[in-house]
């Protein structure tokens, strides 16, 4: 008890404190499922390839990568002179070991899917690694940017309380090394003095786990942390006006939509689904309910994804909605829909759902909004088609890495529940064909074009009420600078430093 009271009171001179909302399920790169925690693991363990603020691929531990013409091998050149925090060298053998662990069925890897085409990994020499693939996988470079594929020291696997199945003390090559962790409380990392890249400013970074958004905000306003993520949405305008803090709207790849169950009448009629899209004033909801923390979708995917094309908008047009409903033979007042919405999962999700139900009422559709806890919610919407009684439900989808192939999982028959999470049960043979082609085309321009064609068809078929791309609010003290966001909902504060 005494240790708890006194622990952590000896503070380092230069500490950067960040309040986050969730505790880590695991600090093992391969076991992660939460972007926030990946973000912390990224301080310690690095991937071969990274993404920059524009979503472009950039070298990290690999300096170059090329894919063969047939798309079946990928060659990577590794960075020279890199050492792990335990002093062992980073080399091709280490990379091979990490990939073998990533692919080992005995290790729990929730996001293994994209690596399934890797047949084997070969160390060509100390600084060259070759991936052998079972099929052309042009998205593989993107997949390597996921924290799941971060490289840890093979020598550390049975030290520091680690085991092959479960790493609790990640030893990587990052600018900061693991220092300590108090469950439910905080994770501390310390600057690694032999880091291969530019040295960060702060000696120590503390991630404090603060589940309540209002409390995170209080901590920042009281000067006890330097930065928070996800403040209470309704306070964003006030924070924006407060000179003591700065609000950064990180871009995001998370699309928020209402999935329409396309298997049951009258929602199997495209005109009814388009009518739903015309009926909702999305811009008004973004401004009035989300306090501007989103951008209305103009394509079935976020602009930060490779393969995105702007298509247009279903402008707010209730008259057009009524016409389409009439054409489809749906009389005003005749249609009642069950509308499920999570609460607190996405920015202002439930209030937005209620507003959407009001807009639907304007065109003569009764939508009964109800909410449940998240596991029940996921359980309900992922029932197979026969037993699935859901009609409308709000959902967010953030691709694991910034590639259209990840967003397109939502529009493929193979991903219908219970196998996957394409919860609108949408399918269109033309779209399937285009996606399959795009997923195995090596030529980038051609690949982007194929996704664009598929996106247009999907937009017209309207399996969703397309809503908005969420933004990722980060708030930091005006006393610090160099804080930004990456398009995959990660913050970028490694090189944060005091403002002048």
């Amino acid at each position, binding site marked *: 008890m005494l240790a708890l009271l006194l622990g952590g009171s000896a503070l380092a001179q230069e500490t950067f404190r960040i*309040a986050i909302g969730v505790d880590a399920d695991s600090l093992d790169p391969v076991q992660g499922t939460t972007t926030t925690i990946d973000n912390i693991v990224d301080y310690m363990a690095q991937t071969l390839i990274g993404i920059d603020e524009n979503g472009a691929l950039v070298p990290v531990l690999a300096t170059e990568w090329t894919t063969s013409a047939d798309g079946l091998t990928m060659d990577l050149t590794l960075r020279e002179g890199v050492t792990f925090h335990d002093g062992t060298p980073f080399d091709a053998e280490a990379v091979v070991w990490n990939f073998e662990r990533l692919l080992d069925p005995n290790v729990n890897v929730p*996001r293994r899917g994209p690596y399934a085409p890797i047949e084997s990994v070969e160390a060509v020499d100390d600084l060259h690694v070759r991936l052998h693939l079972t099929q052309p996988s042009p998205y593989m470079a993107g997949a390597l940017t996921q924290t799941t594929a971060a490289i840890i020291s093979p020598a550390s696997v049975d030290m520091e309380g680690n085991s092959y199945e479960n790493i609790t003390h990640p030893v990587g090559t990052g600018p900061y090394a693991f220092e300590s962790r108090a469950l*439910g409380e905080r994770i501390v990392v310390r600057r690694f003095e032999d880091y291969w890249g530019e040295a960060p400013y702060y000696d120590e970074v503390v991630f*404090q786990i603060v589940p309540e958004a*209002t409390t995170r905000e209080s901590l920042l306003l*009281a000067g006890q942390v330097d930065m928070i993520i996800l403040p209470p949405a309704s306070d964003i305008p006030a924070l924006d006006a407060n000179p003591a803090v700065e609000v950064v709207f990180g871009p995001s790849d998370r699309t928020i939509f209402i999935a329409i169950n396309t298997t049951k009448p009258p929602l199997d009629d495209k005109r009814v689904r388009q009518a739903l899209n015309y009926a909702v004033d999305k811009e008004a909801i973004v401004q009035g309910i989300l306090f501007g923390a989103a951008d209305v979708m103009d394509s079935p995917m976020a602009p930060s994804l490779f393969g995105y094309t702007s298509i247009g908008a279903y402008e707010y047009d209730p008259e057009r909605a009524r016409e389409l409903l009439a054409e489809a033979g749906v009389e005003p007042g005749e249609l009642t829909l069950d509308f499920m919405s999570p609460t607190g999962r996405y920015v202002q999700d439930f209030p937005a759902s209620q507003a959407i139900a009001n807009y639907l009422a304007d065109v003569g559709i009764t939508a009964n909004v109800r909410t449940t806890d998240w596991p029940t919610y*996921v359980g*309900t919407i992922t029932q197979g088609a026969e037993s699935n009684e859901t009609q409308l439900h709000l959902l967010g989808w953030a691709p694991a890495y910034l590639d259209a192939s990840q967003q397109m999982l939502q529009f493929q028959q193979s991903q219908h529940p219970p196998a996957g999470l394409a919860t609108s049960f949408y399918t269109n043979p033309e779209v399937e064909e285009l996606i399959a082609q795009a997923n195995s085309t090596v030529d980038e321009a051609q690949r982007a074009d194929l996704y664009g064609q598929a996106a247009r068809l999907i937009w017209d078929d309207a399996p969703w009420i397309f809503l908005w791309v969420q933004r990722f609010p980060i708030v930091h003290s005006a006393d610090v600078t160099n804080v930004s966001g990456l398009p995959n909902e990660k913050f970028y504060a490694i090189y944060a430093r005091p403002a002048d």
Partner: protein
Amino acid sequence: MTSYLLQRLVGVAVTVLFVAVTVFLMVRLLPGDPARVIAGVLASQQDVERLRTRLGLDQPLWRQGVIFLGDLVQGDLGTSARTSNSVTVEIGARFPATLTLAFASTVLAVAIGVPLGTFAAVRAGRLADLLVSTVVLFGISMPVYWLGLMLIIVFSIRLRWLPAAGAEGPLSLVLPAATLAFFSMAFIARITRSSMLEVLHQDYIRTAVAKGSTERSVVWRHALRNALAPVVTVIGLQFGELLGGAILTETVFAWPGLGRLLVDSIFARDYPTVQGLVIVFALLFALVNLAVDLFYGVIDPRVRYG
């Protein structure tokens, strides 16, 4: 006395076992596939199946139950599905925080509640009593969440005297303990007041007054001692409540205790941790109850254990 204690401890064991069986069955009635929830939305079907096998969810219910109880008897609460850590380790890591908070708020609640209630009883019907009763009513009806936020705004953001959240250093204990103590304090004050009123009308008090004891000595030495029995019951119950029920306070102040672990685990469908926590809570409640009963003997010599 020893046989009484043994008897009671057997009772505790039976209670815990009963709770264990009930909670085992109840968490399995929850809708939703835990393997899917834990594996995450992007996991492949094969990985979800593998996870299901690893968690034993592919076994028939009775079999899962037998394994669970077998492990429990050996003191093994299983492995957290969410974190892959031992549940005992997860609970152990947060137990000191919850215990510290519960202990500090109980001390605070008793230190203020008992004198306040006694004072009100002595001044029954007068202005002081009215004032105390108002504070008590306020304390009982104040939402913990709101009180916590108000304290943060005043003492952390405006005055900058105390940390707003977290568990670093003794100062960070002040706000959560005060918030949590408020309700208990009011409740204890109320019980003390009514218990004292009853005692003050009894013959031996009149005797004490008649033989010339000072008011101070009568109230604080003679009356309070006898009025405390119901108060101790309430304190015991409140302490039990604080151990398990501090969920809101722990959330508002980012206090790394068991209440928050319970909420996180329920949301993550982490069966082993939820089971483990409920069992630990049941055990704590039973032990606190036992301690209260034993304490009666200390304050009231008429209570004897046969």
